């Protein structure tokens, strides 16, 4: 397990980026796997930078959601280095797949051997949050039971 602080901050950042609560993220059981994956590929320093930008924004915006979102766009998502990594983090939580970073990123910040498109683990796939987000089940796992498809979907409103 990563240092407690880093882990908690990683979860907080992930929650802001994915729109899922820390509880729901932890509920996938993938926190440590994703923290390790991303650290292995882009380096610990970049992970630190990601979480500290978020921490700074949280401190500065004092609970104002809209301001926090704005800050994330300005300082994280549009950052040449951090933006693509943040977007990859979102996709990781949603489908359990690490996507190879854009060529421009690799050229500028240095390629990593592990940076190719892959599914982190079988569980990372089945625990993907895309499916619960749309009231579905990942194909081949977590079924709803016989005939449940005959009912309208249950989709949590956010």
């Amino acid at each position: 397990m990563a240092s407690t602080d880093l882990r908690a901050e990683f979860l907080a950042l992930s929650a802001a980026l994915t729109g899922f609560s820390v509880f729901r993220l932890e509920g996938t059981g993938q926190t440590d796997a994703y923290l390790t994956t991303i650290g292995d590929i882009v380096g610990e320093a970049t992970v630190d930078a990601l979480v500290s930008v978020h921490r700074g924004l949280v401190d500065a915006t004092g609970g104002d959601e809209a301001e926090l979102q704005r800050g994330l766009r300005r300082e994280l998502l549009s950052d040449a280095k951090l933006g693509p990594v943040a977007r990859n983090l979102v996709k990781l939580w949603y489908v359990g797949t690490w996507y190879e970073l854009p060529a421009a990123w690799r050229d500028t910040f240095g390629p990593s051997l592990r940076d190719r498109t892959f599914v982190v683990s079988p569980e990372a796939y089945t625990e993907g949050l895309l499916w619960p987000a749309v009231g579905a089940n990942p194909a081949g796992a977590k079924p709803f039971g016989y005939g449940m498809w005959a009912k309208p979907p249950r989709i949590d409103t956010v």
Partner: protein
Amino acid sequence: MTEERNDRFEVSPEAASSIAYDVAVVGSGVSGALIAKELSGRGLRVLVIEAGPSHDLTVAEYETSLRRFYGAASKDNNAPYAANANAPMPRSTDTTKLRPGEPNADGYLVQLGPLELDSTYTRVLGGTSRHWEGKALRMLPDDFALRSRFGRAADWPLGYDDLEPYYRRAEFELGVAGEVEEQDFAGLRFAPDYVYPMHGMPRSHLDRVIADDLDGLEVARDGETFALSVRGTPQARNGVPNAAYDGGRGYRPVGAVSLHQAELGERCQGNTNCTPICPVQAKYDARRTLFQALGTGRVDLLTQAVASEVHVDPASGRVTAIDYQAYADPASAEHVTGTVRADVFVLAGNAVENARLMLASGLTGSSGLVGRNLMDHAYLLTWALMPEPVGALRGPLCTSGIEDLRTGAFRRQHAAFRFGIHNDGWGWATGSPYGDLEELVDRRNTFGPALRRALVQQISRQVLMAGMIEVLPDESNRVTVDPRYRDRLGNPRPVVSFGVPPYTLEAAAFARRLSRRLYQRLGAEDHTAYHPAEPGWVSYQGEGYVLRGGNHWAGTHVMGTSPRASVVDADQRSWDHPNLFLAGAGSMASIGTSNTTLTLAALCLRSADTIAKDLETAAAPVTATAGGAGA
């Protein structure tokens, strides 16, 4: 890794070569397994030769396949099954856009075109049924008489009514869930009081929403008017047993295959993954039948053995032996060659592999038709967003379809087709939901709660209607072999030429126009788009379409009434080689608008009766063959 044999029913290559079998069957798919079960049930000694490993007779092994699928970045049809260079299989991901005159030999199939086919099959225990979807449609009475009714193709040497009792038996063996009352279209006839073994799969929410607006829509074609309706699709997955089945005796669904106790394989739970692998074994696959066959104690299974040559006695034409290459390790080309002897031989390797093996053995048939008349369904996919979330990506892949245009006078002019309504969203057409996620995150710059909301709008509203279009037999569509293209064991690979005529394209154009009208009526946003750069792109009367493979390889050893115009007779017996049966969809004289498996199962049950009669065995007593209602 060297694979261990299960000595309860698996034989070593040495043992297999030393035993004189009544029947040797190549292939453990639906075709081979059904024939093995039927014949062993009647006391005959059977050898099943399977090119793939004996994996997946335990739940734990099955789960390995499932986890391979979970962990695969590409979740194509063959993603759950380990690549095996000794018994290679086609993957849809190998299909690329062809340039004129340049074959694509990247995958196992060598594709010559002109149409690129992304159809696949699987060479593992249980064959392609491992990743089939399970639609179990009967062919229509008209489909057996295309020449006499519509002046097209050739009539079958048998009619619907000849095959009907075997359809019933096939529905029992495969465990089909459906409602007879819903199948009252296009002259489809059932035996009086017949019901399917299980009640139909509940219709999806999407089906109902669509039916609300589409039912009753009238379509005029060639002087006839067709009133469309959304109907449940009969399918081979476990549902609610019908108490009225078999004269009120009911039906007991068959569960998971396992060498030790496993209470799995119950009702379909809606895993939405029938293709490529059902995690709970609710969907029928041929391992079930094979397992029952092995249970007779009269079936030997020789796995990791690739049939490589059929030997024929030139004088009598009879098959004397089949050679096979047995390998101990799928990771190595090392193998020994053995020979099996039997009174009767059955090739059940599927339409492509049967033809490939015959041609590799130099057996082109006196008609010259072995490998020719290759058929498959052409799929025209159309996709749209419904006005409201309808809960895409839930339930079996399809629970309903539109069947009303499967026959009519228009078949003189153009092909028939059906629409399958897909519960699994746009995945087949666009790579959704992954592509949607990438679009929203990487290009539309959405994140946080807004991303969740956007995903709901983009994914849960998806509907895909797949038009499955008939392709008639055509001698220039074919499987051949070419010594330049071989697999790792040295066996020639299948070389495929395939194209579709205007007869099919006219139906594609019509289906596309109709789909536009359907979406207009539903108030759905039509997102269908076809690009010239895609494999399967065809242009017809100024408009472009993309046709996808239907995975229903058929016709390479068509049946008929004469040795000059067909490869096998109505019993699937080779005209040239009286003790050789070519079993499976390759025998189909045409394929109508039904997925092929139920029909090939019916044909194989019929052939089993013939083979048993041939061998007139006085051996073991006749044990019940578990006939269904009135079978």
